[in-house]
């Protein structure tokens, strides 16, 4: 099995701290994910790549009971709202152990998303943050 990235440039892991990589516009301040070459809000090219905050809150979620291209049912997906003010669509893991609730704290992890014939596809997921203050 070869480990491959789900899509290039979406995230990085430095010293064990994973982060999604977004763009911040120097002109209007809009934060975008994934990285763009121009700001979709104001079309400025003055964009800086930034590490997005690892923790966010659960904006909404659903458990899907039909297969998708890569995920056998049931799987759970949701929108995570980050402190930067944007929502990230993501697979959610750890929902079997910890019942999900809108507004709960969520944290980013880098994990295997799916396996196909030769590859292990690595991407990002969010999981509930439990038992921490």
């Amino acid at each position, binding site marked *: 099995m070869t480990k491959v990235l789900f899509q290039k440039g979406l995230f990085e892991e430095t010293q064990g701290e994973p982060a999604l990589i977004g763009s911040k516009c120097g002109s209007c301040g809009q934060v975008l994910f994934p990285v763009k070459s121009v700001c979709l809000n104001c079309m400025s090219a003055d964009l800086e790549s930034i590490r997005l905050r690892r923790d966010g809150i659960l*904006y909404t979620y659903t458990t899907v009971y039909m297969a998708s291209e890569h995920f056998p049912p049931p799987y759970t997906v949701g929108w995570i709202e980050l402190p930067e003010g944007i929502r990230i669509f993501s697979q959610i893991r750890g929902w079997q152990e910890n019942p999900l609730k809108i507004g709960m704290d969520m944290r980013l992890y880098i994990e295997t998303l799916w396996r196909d014939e030769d590859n292990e596809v690595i991407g990002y997921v969010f999981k509930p943050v439990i038992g921490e203050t």
Partner: protein
Amino acid sequence: MREVAIIGVGSTVFGKFPEKAIFELGTEAVQAALKDAGISPKDIQFAYYANLYGGMVEGQAALRDAGITDIEITNVENACTGGATAVRRTWYDIASGLYDIGIAVGSESMTTSPIAGKLIPPAKGDLSGELGMNTMAKFALSQRRYMDISGVTLEQIAMVSVKNHHNGCANPYSQYKKEFSAEDIINSRLICDPITQLQSCSTTDGAAAVILTSLNVARRYTRKPVIIAASVIRGGDYAFRQKDITFSDVTYKGVKGAYTMAGIGPEDINLCELHDAFAVNELQHYVELGFCERGEEVALLMDGVTNIKGRLPVNPSGGLLSKGHPLSATGVAQIAEIVWQLRGQAGKNQVPDAKVGLTHTLGGEVADLEAGAVGVHILKV
């Protein structure tokens, strides 16, 4: 711009017809519309044909077998809004004076499509699609949050399905024609929590067609032309601009444009066919379409205002929930339904004294955008 009227409409029965090709369904709808208008296929000057999951030049094949060849034919795709887009383009080509008589057709065979039995996925390579997004998940995510922040219950949402399935029972074109209780709907198969099978429209094949002419030409064919008072198509804005995923900004903007174009407001609408792909959508759309304020939508449903005998009947045809949803056909079929209603030909589902009707379709799932497109039409007699 000239006034444009509808002189003929036609539809196939909606249902599962895996033995019929997309163009065969299309031909059937075109023939029905020609017959309804009392017009010869030779008099059709141009056509727009909406289809998503078929092959090339589907429109030419469908029109060929209805005797329509050797004219300008354009095939269009706009996901669930494809049919409405075909009508919009046909309207424009007549309103602008380019042509006098045209036909808009939508046809889809979901049972033979590559996504038969699957949840409607975004295009290949779409970021959220690769991560497990599909059209039903999108609205399940909206519904979960909607229930959480508004306190609207699953029982209340299920009543949309109860109403529309009730309406569909008397519609000869409907797929289901079966009554369901709120309990049946809630206890049906869970697909994208909290959306169950009967809160969702099903896999459907079908086609519909409408014939448009300038108002002057229409008077040659009918004493009761139905006038297109507004025709709007609008694509979705960036998702980061959508404050709240339980409110469809593109629907709100699209319908606002339609009201302006028609010179009327939501209080003037007598009936509506809207995009109830999922039961929750109907409640949300009441607000976006201006039928009530936020927080009043459940009352509108529960008080019977949107029943066939109510003040503002919504989805008297049974809607997508009961009638079915052959993607590209839906927008055209909604217009056909309103035309029958405004002419007084809607049979057991006739809405009394309707003069102004509104149609709304919404569809297409693509990363970074709120939605693909919305289509809104206002028809009047």
